[in-house]
């Protein structure tokens, strides 16, 4: 399972935007799967399967947090949990493009505004490069649902980023 931890962590971070939450998610998935590691060895397409388990855990995680009567900060006091700060540590390097970095930071903030289902489809499709066909079993939704979910997610991101949101009604009036 060791080789899969980076993969799980990367997806978990894309879903949550928080290092602490990503670590919690990965820990919970490992607790769940560790007793089944022999079974995992026989799974042909392991990463999509792991992504599915992680996605379900993530949706539960978000719902649980919404129900929790006590607000708990995502930060763990070790610095790299702010999405922008974490990004700064991971991105361009000394010659980084400040403008692009700024857009990335704003995209991360905009991703926070999406529902967990929207965030998952846009990050898995547009960031990780999965096709919608591949995402059907992972996200457990039919193709049409995924297409409209992705469309709405992108539209929301564009609005959040002050981009042209393709407001169809406005355009028809022109």
């Amino acid at each position, binding site marked *: 399972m060791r080789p899969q931890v980076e993969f799980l962590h990367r997806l978990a971070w894309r879903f949550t935007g928080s290092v602490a939450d990503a*670590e919690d998610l990965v*820990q919970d998935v*490992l607790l769940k799967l560790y007793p089944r590691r022999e079974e995992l060895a026989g799974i042909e397409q392991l990463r999509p399967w792991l992504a599915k388990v992680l996605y379900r855990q993530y949706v539960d995680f978000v719902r649980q947090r919404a129900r*929790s009567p006590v607000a708990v900060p995502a930060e763990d006091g070790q610095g790299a949990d702010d999405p922008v700060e974490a990004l700064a540590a991971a991105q361009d390097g000394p010659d980084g493009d400040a403008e692009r970095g700024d857009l990335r930071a704003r995209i991360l903030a905009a991703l926070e505004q999406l529902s967990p289902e929207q965030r998952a489809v846009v990050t898995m499709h547009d960031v990780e490069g999965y096709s919608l066909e591949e995402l059907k079993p992972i996200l457990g939704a039919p193709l049409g649902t995924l297409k409209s979910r992705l469309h709405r997610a992108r539209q929301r991101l564009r609005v959040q980023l002050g*981009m042209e949101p393709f407001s169809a009604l406005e355009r028809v009036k022109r």
Partner: protein
Amino acid sequence: MDCRHFALRVDDWLDGRLNLAERQLMQSHVERCPGCRRGYEDAGALRATLRMLPAPAVRPGFAERALATAAAAPRRGRQAMLGMALAASLVLGLGVAMILFAVRPEPVHTVVLTVRQPESVRLVFNAGKPLPGATLSLSLPENVEIVGFGERRELTWQTDLDEGENLLRLPLVAHGPAGGELVARVSRGASSRTFRLKIEVRGADAAGASPALRASV
């Protein structure tokens, strides 16, 4: 093609899901409509930036710690595993705020564990000022252990507390129906504070029956 139709299909165009005739219609429209061209360029820029969005590296030692914790968790049958996953999801993120050097007397908080099911409990220590080199001690009740620490019921270590909230995640597992009190003690120099967390344990049969999140601040 009008702007509405263009807006509906632009994602399909960018995702490569249009046939040649449809692509030509889209191309023709975008060349003569400045508004749609701007939107098309924005959509392309968003997609290109998303594609290059980096993720932070795994923190050193995390993978080893997480796997060790998973390896040390109690074994259960497949059916019990499903129950554990559900219960863990219900309790995940449960937080108990402990106000360090600020509240007196310290309140007692309550968490509910399900027997033999590891659950993450978060303790938040809110320090009024930075506390470098503070000593943190934990004392666990008889039936409760920290996953990965076996039967050790007393743990003490030194840590630096930042001003504000400091999170401590504890993967706890209860081995019997009796609960008890987890006692956390933070000390530095001559000052110290003791916090008590009441732990209740419910049977495995009750897992999933109710979120049963009972925490008070």
